[in-house]
């Protein structure tokens, strides 16, 4: 579903991604961990068509990101550490606005369905600014799922959440039919990476340094691998 080949991204003379090659199967949940500045967010931004690659090729569902960004945008939902919501509007108003941009059929019904799914029905008329960080992040997931995208990109969705809110988010991510979606998630938290992802990749200095299937490793081994690759020499 996601095919990345030799992806390079440079900002001026500074290389942020140095030839990333990664394949994510349809329906697979892959987590990407790495230290600050490893290039995780840059990679997600490129996949989300918010930034152009300097070189390399990226295909989503067979569509080239550069050639057909509009088709790709219909295929992805993005949840980042920023909610991408209008905090002066209510939760429902936010979903209805984005539903119009994504041509969602029966937007009111879909918004209600998602608000119920993320546990915000009852607060749908309240401004987003009155929601807790955890509630805002749940609404951000609802926004990302609004058009039922086959690919979900999660860029450090656990940032700023306490353990309980992060656990709720994790449970929500697992319950929202994710089995049918392809998910690529970046996080700093190895525990969540190992618990939520089927495959974990370690991104260091703009390159995939290591990747493993969750079934072949445990958290302790993963921590050791992370320390090995991500710690400064």
């Amino acid at each position, binding site marked *: 579903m996601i095919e990345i080949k030799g992806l390079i991204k440079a900002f001026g003379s500074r290389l942020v991604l140095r030839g990333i090659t990664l394949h994510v199967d349809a329906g697979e949940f892959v987590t990407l961990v790495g230290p600050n500045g490893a290039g995780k967010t840059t990679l997600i931004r490129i996949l989300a068509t918010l930034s152009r690659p300097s070189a390399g090729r990226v295909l989503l569902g067979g569509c080239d990101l550069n050639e057909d960004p509009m*088709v790709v945008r*219909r295929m992805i939902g993005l949840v*980042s550490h920023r909610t991408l*919501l*209008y905090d002066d509007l209510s939760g429902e108003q936010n979903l209805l606005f*984005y539903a119009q*941009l994504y041509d969602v059929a029966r937007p009111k019904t879909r918004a209600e369905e998602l608000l119920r799914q993320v546990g915000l029905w009852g607060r749908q008329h309240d401004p987003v600014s009155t929601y807790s960080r955890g509630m805002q992040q749940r609404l951000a997931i609802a*926004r990302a799922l609004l058009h039922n995208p086959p690919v979900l990109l999660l860029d450090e969705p656990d940032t700023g959440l306490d353990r309980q809110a992060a656990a709720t988010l994790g449970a929500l991510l697992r319950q929202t039919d994710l089995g049918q979606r392809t998910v690529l998630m970046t996080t700093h938290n190895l525990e969540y990476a190992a618990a939520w992802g089927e495959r974990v990749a370690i991104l260091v200095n703009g390159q995939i340094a290591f990747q493993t299937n969750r079934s072949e490793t445990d958290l302790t081994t993963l921590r050791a691998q992370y320390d090995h690759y991500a710690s400064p020499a």
Partner: protein
Amino acid sequence: MHHLRKIWAIMAKDLAVELRTREVLGAMFVFALLVIFIFNFAFELRVEDQRTLAPGVLWVAITFAGMLGLSRSFIREKDRGSLEGLLLAPVDRGVIFLGKMLGNALFIAVIALIILPAFVILFNLSAAVMPQLAMIAVLGTIGLSGVGTLFSAMAVHTRAREILLPVLLFPLIVPVILSAVKLSAAVIDNVPFAEVQQWLSLLVVFDIVFAVLSFLFFDYVVEE
């Protein structure tokens, strides 16, 4: 129709946010009114016929107040992270531009129309000039918001964004201000329309050309 619905959605969203916060329109209104008051009092001391200066004062007030609205237009989106939400949607960037531009034009036009009565009273003008001044204000507003929306999107990525916008925008909108002032003066002085027709043409051509250019360049401006 498909694009029009999305343009409307973006404009309506900006309006809904503004109605909830009253962040921009209130500031624009007070600022525009203050400009008219201050110029009126200042000129009263030395200028014999204030009417000669009135069109300039009106357009200084509209332009400066418009600048406040234009600068907030994308800063609000950028600071709250919602700009990425817009850019992520499968919507032509030109549609986003038009939605934002029409929202900005609406805000500036509303302020211009609200301050007109105060302007007419303070400068001792006949109320009969108001409909024509309102039409000129709407035309000038389109020119202002067309270029202004593009430069607002451009400036928002810079550190000195609120300072940069007027520096970039003022030189470009000189034709709008010039023609709007000439047309307003003609209305106030009851000059035959034929004598100022070229200014109206300039204003309309500017509105169309710069709206189209801004529409075309918007994609490059928001691209990372």
